[in-house]
């Protein structure tokens, strides 16, 4: 297979040339995935922490559901978001289909269960350790929740990273709701899918290599930060 050699060449030449199209695609990919993960964190973390802390009817069902939803197929999410945002759908008036906002919405739906489920696990473990102390100090549910999220911050970073990995790697959802429109909604994964369909496997693989390097870099940096901070605070 000469494809790997030419893929590396293609990747290198794209990077070395600082290809403006590539830069745009990478930037949009980051904006969409980071934006989606940010929103999913805002929603998923309090949700996961609340499920960890409170006992209410149907809680087990929610826990099971959150865990199951971690594996939502991106295509299905894309389709559902498409049907909702379609002009013929309930939120058609907003005209969000085929925009980065639609892609963010789809990824928020994909990533929120991951962050919520992992947060629940982390917070539940921490709550076992903290419960008596926090109740003794007179922390109400709200204060306890924020304290647990704050004290679990290093471990929770892993949840955020898992969400980011999911968001930046998926193609099914953003393809459907974004439409892979050049200069508008084309991100790394949809660009790769496009190059595959053009039969330009080397360029596709080249883009893939760049995506892998980027996400490895982000994960690596976050991991190093987390490890250092966690060591400082002894877990």
């Amino acid at each position: 297979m000469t494809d790997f050699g030419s893929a590396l060449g293609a990747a290198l030449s794209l990077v070395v040339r600082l290809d403006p199209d590539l830069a745009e695609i990478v930037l949009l990919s980051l904006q969409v995935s980071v934006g989606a993960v940010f929103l999913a964190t805002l929603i998923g973390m309090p949700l996961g922490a609340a499920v960890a802390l409170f006992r209410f009817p149907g809680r087990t069902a929610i826990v099971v559901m959150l865990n199951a939803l971690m594996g939502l197929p991106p295509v299905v999410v894309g389709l559902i978001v498409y049907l909702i945002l379609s002009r013929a759908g309930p939120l058609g008036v907003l005209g969000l289909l085929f925009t980065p906002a639609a892609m963010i919405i789809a990824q928020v739906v994909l990533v929120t269960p991951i962050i919520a489920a992992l947060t629940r696990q982390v917070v539940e473990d921490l709550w076992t350790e903290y419960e008596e102390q926090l109740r003794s100090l007179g922390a109400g549910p709200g204060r306890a929740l924020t304290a647990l999220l704050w004290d679990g911050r290093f471990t929770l970073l892993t949840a955020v990273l898992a969400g980011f990995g999911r968001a930046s790697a998926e193609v099914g959802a953003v393809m459907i709701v974004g439409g892979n429109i050049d200069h508008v909604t084309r991100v790394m994964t949809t660009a790769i899918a496009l190059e595959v369909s053009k039969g330009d496997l080397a360029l596709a693989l080249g883009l893939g290599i760049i995506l892998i390097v980027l996400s490895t870099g982000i994960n690596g940096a976050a991991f190093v930060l987390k490890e250092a901070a966690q060591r400082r605070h002894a877990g």
Partner: protein
Amino acid sequence: MGKLAIRILSAALLAASFIPTASAAEKFIIVASTTSTKNSGLFDHILPLFEKKTGIQVRVVAVGTGQAIRMAQNGDADVLFVHHRPSEETFVAEGFGVKRFDVMVNDFVVVGPDDDPAHIAGMTDAAKALEKIALARAPFVSRGDDSGTHKKELALWRAAGVDVVQASGSWYRETGSGMGATLNTASAMQGYALADRGTWLSFRNRAGMRVLVEGDRRLFNPYGVILVNPERHPYVKADLGREFIAWLISPEGQAAIGTFRINGEVLFKPNAMAVTH
């Protein structure tokens, strides 16, 4: 659940408002089109000319003809630009589209492995060629995705008197994906496939495949453009859409299409004038 949805949505809107995309263009239309036009590079050739002239950005969502038509039926596109005349005429007749205009034609070709186990190279009767493939039980890779190309292929099989539903899964293999993915599969399986010439010419991963059958009148592949009916879908940008269609079938647009070449070969023959006059 409703509350959560609203929270997600409002938060997403908030985030979206921070995204400084390159597409801050106020004036844009969405064109639902096919992979054949997009992957061939035609749009990359003609759209900059149109955008420069009018300031209207054309956002192309390239899917199979079947999906493109459904997208337009939902009102998610302003203009439909596909290549399956019967479906297009139904689309207009049912009131989803305003009027169909001829834009251009290209043709389909039967491609296959160099060694051509079914011995169809050079034939000009596409149906007969398919029949020989069926008799040889040589692998044939079909789109299987309700696209214009897929519909054309099924019509040819009917003309050849071959029941491919029976053969599905044996020598007849449906990928259920786009033209490019299907060609990738055909190339990997050393199988035959029906492809539009545009995608074929711009396709890079040919790996021992070549055009074996061409020139049959039934392989003729006309493209039509239709404005989505604004009376049906009030969001349709009718004025911008009309402007785009008018440009496509104008001498200027037609010339732009006619000058698009790959390796010196003209991919799409403009034919709007023939009909409008």
